[in-house]
């Protein structure tokens, strides 16, 4: 599996990466592995604004509901609609393909200061 090289991860297992000026936010492969079968995804309204560290959605596995936190501040520009109908895609597809939301970010460089590169993050959690 090739992972996008500019992907950054939070301690609470979210990731963010930039592509063509847009910022994609999702949860890491480690988080998905820990959750097991994902059966429900709740995502925010488009245009809603969140600050770094705020809860923006919920992911439910068979066992439990887990809140997801913004790794950076931003305004939601899109949600991954296919996950609403088929949350199991998170288990089935590559984690960095199955982003949850897209945001516009004003202070990305500053906000992402404390995030870890994927390789470092993986070393820490495993």
């Amino acid at each position, binding site marked *: 599996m090739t992972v996008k090289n500019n992907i950054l991860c939070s301690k609470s297992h979210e990731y963010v990466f930039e592509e063509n000026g847009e910022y994609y936010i999702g949860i890491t492969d480690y988080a998905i592995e820990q959750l*097991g*079968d994902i*059966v*429900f995804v*709740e995502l925010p309204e488009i245009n809603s604004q969140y600050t770094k560290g705020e809860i923006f959605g*919920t992911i*439910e*596995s*068979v*066992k*439990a*509901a887990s809140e997801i936190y913004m790794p950076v501040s931003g305004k939601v520009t899109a949600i991954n609609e296919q996950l609403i109908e088929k949350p199991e895609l998170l*288990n089935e597809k590559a984690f960095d393909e199955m982003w949850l939301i897209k945001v516009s970010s004003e202070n990305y460089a500053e906000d992402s200061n404390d995030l870890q590169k994927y390789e470092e993050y993986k070393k820490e959690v495993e």
Partner: protein
Amino acid sequence: MAKTFLYNNHIKLGAKMVDFAGWEMPVQYTSIIEEHNNVRNNAGLFDVSHMGEIFVSGNDALNFLQTLVPQNVEKLIDKKALYCQFTNEKGGIVDDLLIYKLKESHYLLIVNASRLEADYTWLVNHKSNFDVTIDNKSDIYSMVALQGPKASDILSEVGIKKENQPKTFYIDKYKLLNEDILISRTGYTGEDGFEIIIRNEKVSELWELILEKGKPYGIMPIGLGARDTLRLEAAMSLYGNELNENTTPVEAGLSWTVDKDKKQDYIGKNIILNQIQLGTDKKLIAFKMIDKAIARHEYPIYSDNKEIGHVTSGCVAPAIGQNIGLGYINNKNLKINDTIQIMIRNKLYNAQITDKNFIKKHNKGN
């Protein structure tokens, strides 16, 4: 944390381990949904060695047990099992358990892991002058559960031919792997199946044997995750969720386990019989989510914008493709098919009260 004698088997199978009642137990091997469906369609093997085995014997064994449970233990014939609860002075449930009558004056009690100490203390404290021996052998025995529509075929391959297998809700002694073992036809999944009690030293060998013989029948090892969704889909209560010391069998929908004609006194009898006669405000309901959301343990239940109770268990029900749950409400007027709301993350979602037959039981039950 305690480990069962199957710990190494679980690790070898790649299980994800979690803490359950102080035991390091497998929560899943592959996927909870896959394991769940495999028990409904084929068969599954569970490590339930954490559960407690307490032997009660002696001249007064029957009279002693009669003082502890609302069921009538006197009605038990040899080798038969009885589902019951230890009740306290308030009628609340100390634990729910199976009592097996092994033979005259010899009983086996299978109790929850989380309640083993409380149960043992309860038994000892109520022994008074009864001529009984209370023997907690949980440290000597392990237990595995073989469950699912193929369970009987697999047990036959393992060496216990179908004609010799115990009937539903019976227990018997067998010889396997040069060991004396006990097999009962009971379980916690809503499927046909067996629970096998064997000495710790032999359980790993038995586990391997069942998985090997079960391979042609599609057997899988099953973790506690699917054990929970299977029991919930079968609307069976879990101690700590639906049952506790402040909840009576009547409130928990277990009036069928109360013998109304039982002559002997038992702890909490007056309160329990009173509740049966007059009904209770608090009652356990089953529900299906109408709106797309999952109810979880402790979420509030609403009706007419008033909080009327709380969810005790909730999950996706893999075999029926719906989100289901159990919970307590304090409202006598609500009936089956009525709509209630569940408060989930500060929003109300609609659910419908249903009967407790989430799944049609496909027990073969011979």
